[in-house]
């Protein structure tokens, strides 16, 4: 059977390793195998100590992001035949600290996500008994795209601004904030824009655009950031010109 070599980054701090090393493993090259199937083959048949995250293997849980030949990819949706003849280099997601092997620390993103208030904010909550907040399909379309984010972090791995300065809020968190800003049921945009206009917010972005290229779900975080910039600028102008407007 055909084989392909996976060149996998291993980092084992428990074993006094201070630098990651690349280790070669040969795995079968089958037409329907994704990179993740190759990693599972290694774990089950060759080396049980390899560590990585995965779960749904259908591109929706967002666990399995890694650098594949230097590009941020969902390994469950990237196929080995497309990378043949190899060797295929597999490394942990760029721009995040590595805990071990292919596993990176996401704590930073989790804090950033809650900091932008990604939940529906209403002045007054309507009781559930009164039924749904009406929303037309067109109003739904306004934000739908930005609600598709699976938090896979490929965009952070692709973003040089985040790589150079980790305090940047980053593409996915901004896209999700913007998703609620655009939701016709939400009334929290001014709160969120104030947060996004702070240093480390939207203005850190200089429109590299790689986040949108990397995004496997077509979210277009770069677009969201630019729209948020425009909204933040309009908001700033308004409060400059109409300072008496209620806060």
């Amino acid at each position: 059977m055909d084989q392909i070599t996976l060149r996998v980054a291993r980092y084992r701090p428990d074993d006094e390793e201070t630098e990651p090393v690349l280790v070669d493993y040969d795995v079968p090259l089958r037409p329907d195998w994704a990179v993740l199937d190759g990693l599972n083959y290694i774990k089950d048949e060759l080396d049980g100590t390899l560590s990585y995250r995965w779960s749904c293997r259908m591109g929706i849980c967002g666990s399995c992001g890694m650098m594949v030949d230097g590009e941020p990819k969902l390994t469950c949706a990237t196929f080995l035949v497309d990378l043949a003849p190899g060797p295929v280099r597999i490394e942990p997601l760029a721009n995040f600290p590595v805990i071990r092997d292919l596993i990176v620390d996401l704590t930073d993103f989790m804090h950033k996500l809650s900091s932008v208030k990604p939940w529906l904010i209403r002045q007054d909550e309507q009781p559930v008994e009164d039924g749904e907040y009406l929303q037309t399909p067109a109003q739904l379309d306004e934000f739908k795209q930005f609600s598709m984010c699976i938090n896979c972090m490929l965009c952070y791995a692709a973003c040089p601004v985040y790589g150079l300065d980790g305090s940047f809020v980053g593409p996915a968190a901004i896209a999700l904030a913007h998703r609620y800003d655009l939701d016709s049921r939400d009334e929290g945009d001014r709160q969120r824009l104030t947060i996004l206009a702070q240093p480390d917010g939207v203005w850190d972005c200089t429109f590299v655009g790689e986040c949108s290229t990397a995004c496997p779900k077509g979210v277009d975080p770069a677009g969201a950031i630019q729209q948020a910039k425009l909204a933040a600028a309009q908001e700033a102008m308004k409060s400059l010109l109409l300072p008496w407007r209620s806060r």
Partner: protein
Amino acid sequence: MISPLEARYYRRRMPLLWWAHRRSYAIFVLRELSSAFVALFIVELLLLVRATARGPAAYESFLDTMAHPAMIVLNLIALAFVLLHAITFANLTPRAMIVRLRGRRVPSRVVLAGVYAGWLLVTAFLAWLLVAA
């Protein structure tokens, strides 16, 4: 505070030539560096204002300085960079602004064409002003 756990994290630094691997990264670095040149334009403008205020002699000497070949090269470079920024900015418009006409979303290409057409128009108007003067 760094916990003992985090102390054992492997933190990668971006390699010195990271930006050379991808066009979009190179352009990003170029834009970052070029801000100095854009600032130069502003300084020149301020100097011009000051020179005009000080009278014809000062104005003449300002023109002389600016005519120096080194200054012209510097200004050409700055112009190139300002164009880079302007194009980046123009290309970004359809992503930043969702334009709707009678409830339908205007395709990005049309918005983009609009932006460039507008730019052309303004440039033509300025050119006409100059020529007419």
